[in-house]
């Protein structure tokens, strides 16, 4: 069948403006999108730049957007695309600086962000003569998590990265999860690990939109994993100071009055002695006051004692 490919182009040596090239390619119906790209480069336009390696959905190298959906070119059949749209539209994945055509800057994106997780073990008994004894039940989840391709498709779906490029993103957090949940890292190593995972732009900057959960080709649910790491942080003690204050203020407020004292929450989160931080919040407070969004007196609600008991019970059960 003859297929129309419309492919994103960018030539860094020639102005670097984005444009599209259109190609007509004759392909068998069960060909992959990658087959077509290779044919175009071989027969029509050898300036076209795109990445590929394993060609069997195992390595993560060929991630692009195919008709607006981020996926691998090597596992996507052209027939599946063309039955929904007249042409195959190929763009680089979102949120990532593009270098050339469909080649984007993985260094600044996934690689550096994953490296910020200090993604390695430093066991004290690295050269012990025998392996760690670990029940299979504790290893299975770590192993499943480690099947991550590092393909960047979860980062592509992230809602935070378009507004804050410095956010480490779901792929890095999945890498963090693999260590947090690994039964072989305990004690002081685990403490240190949580500090790394909770670094600024890390664990606490996810806005839990859960977009990433639907993006992983291996079904790894990165957003849910971030929430699981947060659960660990709640149990182990939050290492991120500001988040820790926020959490404590929230809990105290609800325990004492049955509802949230937002003024106190803001001030205690920033830190009562943090004058610069508090001053920065002043204009927001004034605006809120003017629009009647600043609550008046914060008094104990009916049923507050019952709410306190529920909270304490929840705390006990963790």
């Amino acid at each position, binding site marked *: 069948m003859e297929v129309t490919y419309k492919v994103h182009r960018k*030539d*860094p*040596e020639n102005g670097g403006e984005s444009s599209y090239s259109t190609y007509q390619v004759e392909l*068998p119906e*069960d*060909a*992959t999108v990658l*087959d077509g790209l*290779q*044919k175009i*480069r*071989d*027969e029509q336009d*050898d*300036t076209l*730049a795109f*990445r*590929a*390696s*394993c*060609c*069997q*959905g*195992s*390595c*993560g*190298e060929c991630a692009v957007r195919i008709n607006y959906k981020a996926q691998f070119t090597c*596992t996507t059949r052209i027939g599946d695309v063309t039955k929904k749209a007249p042409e195959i539209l190929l763009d680089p994945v979102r949120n990532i600086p593009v*270098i*050339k055509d469909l*080649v984007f800057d*993985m260094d600044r994106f996934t*690689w550096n962000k994953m*490296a910020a997780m200090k*993604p*390695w*073990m*430093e*066991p004290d*008994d*690295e*050269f*012990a*003569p*025998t*392996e*760690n*004894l*670990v*029940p*299979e039940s504790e*290893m299975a989840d*770590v*192993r499943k998590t*480690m*099947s991550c391709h*590092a393909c960047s498709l979860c980062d592509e779906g992230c809602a935070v990265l378009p507004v804050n490029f410095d956010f480490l993103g779901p792929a890095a957090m999945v890498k963090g999860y693999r260590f947090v949940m*690994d039964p*072989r890292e305990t004690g002081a190593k685990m403490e240190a690990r949580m500090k790394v995972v909770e670094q600024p732009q890390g664990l606490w900057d996810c806005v839990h939109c859960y977009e990433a959960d639907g993006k992983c080709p*291996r079904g790894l649910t990165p957003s849910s994993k971030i929430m699981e790491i947060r659960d660990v942080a709640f149990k182990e003690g939050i290492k991120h100071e500001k988040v820790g204050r926020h959490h404590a203020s929230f809990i105290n407020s609800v325990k004492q009055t049955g509802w949230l004292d937002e003024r106190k929450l803001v001030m205690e989160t920033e830190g009562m002695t943090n004058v610069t931080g508090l001053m920065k919040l002043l204009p927001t407070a004034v605006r809120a006051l003017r629009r009647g969004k600043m609550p008046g007196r914060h008094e104990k609600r009916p049923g507050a004692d019952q709410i306190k008991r529920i909270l304490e019970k929840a705390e006990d059960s963790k």
Partner: protein
Amino acid sequence: MPQYDVLVIGGGASGLRAAIAAKRAGASVAVLSKVHPLRTNSALSPGGLNAPLGNDDSAEKFAQDIRNAGDGLCDTEAVNILAADAAREVVWLERVGVPFNRNAEGRIDCRPLGSSSVSRAAYADDRTGHMVLHVLHEQFQREDIPCFAERFVTSLIQDGGVCTGAVALGHRSGQLETFGAGAVILATGGATQLYRPCTSAVGTTGDGLMLAHDLGVGLVDLEMVQFHPTVYSAARTALISEAALGAGAKLVNAAGDKLVNAGGLSRAQLAAEVHKAGQNGGGPVSLDLRPVDNLASRFPAAAEVVRLMAGIDITKDPVPVQPVAHRPMGGIEANAAGETSVAGLYAVGECAHNGLNGAGRLPGNTLTEAVVFGRRVGEAAAAHAKSAGAADAGGSQAAQDGERLAEITSGGTSGDTIGAVHRELGELMNANLGVSRTDAGLAEAQDKIRALRERHAALRVNNKSRIYNYALAGYIELGNLLKLAEATALAARGRAESRGAHLRSDHPEKDDSNWKAHTVVRSQDGSPKLDTRAVSA
């Protein structure tokens, strides 16, 4: 010019292990890789890595199994080293993070793989290579070793018979960069892209073999190419770990009858059986995985890749399979420390021939070989670099390579293409240097490869840019493959016997009196010359 004690070329399992070891031995180290390390072919190795960890196992038993699979061509030193070091390396991998499957006692579980006499393959589902590669990359980052990814090496630099560095084209920078080194380790992987179909990533084009060959280093036992017996292959390929056979999967013929009792057969014998059954209208052979307990959870990678590539649900239907080119046993002539005939040049892993794999590699040994010899070769190169001191790599090689790249990109050719020549080469190799070979077929292959080389020489790349110019890289890769094909056909024609992976239907018997020896191909006056060398006891 960046200067390192040890320069590792190749970011797969062998290269990363070598780099870690060299750094820990006190050397300054850098890695050059065509693709990011996590995109290398090591990630595709599914089944496991052998180590005698079980109570019923020993280094001696392991060594015997390796020798049996190697069918007379194993060199003793490499076999004994692997058998002795494997357990230690696998335990180290576990300690630094590989999430191996566990047995009831919480120890590393070992499963049966191929023709091993005991269950010896440590595994992480059927994604062992992926997990080992990712953990090695973690430890590589821990050592803070510079990684120059997406660098295509165009030349090794040689000065007075000593290798002093390499020149690489940076895909991103578009520049030819010179790297000076006290020692260079080739860990560039195999050359399975010689064949179509094949099980390996697009980058397995034998670049390292040709870099060494160009410096006069011998290429050993090239005719020994392992075909994997359980690969789905139509428009695309999907490899199913042979571990599935050990777990209860069955090979069945078109009538649904069990084809063969796989237990105890070498991979070459199994491939030959599947090949034979599929010949002469025998109809397709299928792998029926349904008898495997907890199939989807034990073989998630097989389930995924077969679903993606073949559209088949392995829990519901048998998968048509055929033997597909998988892994060369031959490679750059090196000893167990990775040393080649050029001072300062080392080779390790799938690109190297150190005598371990003989005429048939024991399934499950690729990853073990990568880590055991990666470490040893990394340490040897570090020691060499220290004693050799810094050498001047100069800049003249880069200038020469620049002229070569300019010539390649000097305009268009019409009609013929890189892809067409590569496709024809792959199909020719599969037909004439496949599971079964004949003298006439090999002679024909030699003629046709010569013709393909001429077509390649006449081709030019239109794209003059050096930035992410994959057509330019592809042209050089194809040139490497064609030269390697020529050398492989020469070796295969020379070996007039059947042994291990080399099955000659015109010489069906093993001929120990003449051929219990390695073939060695060297470049002489620009063309390959065949020689032999005794197997070392």
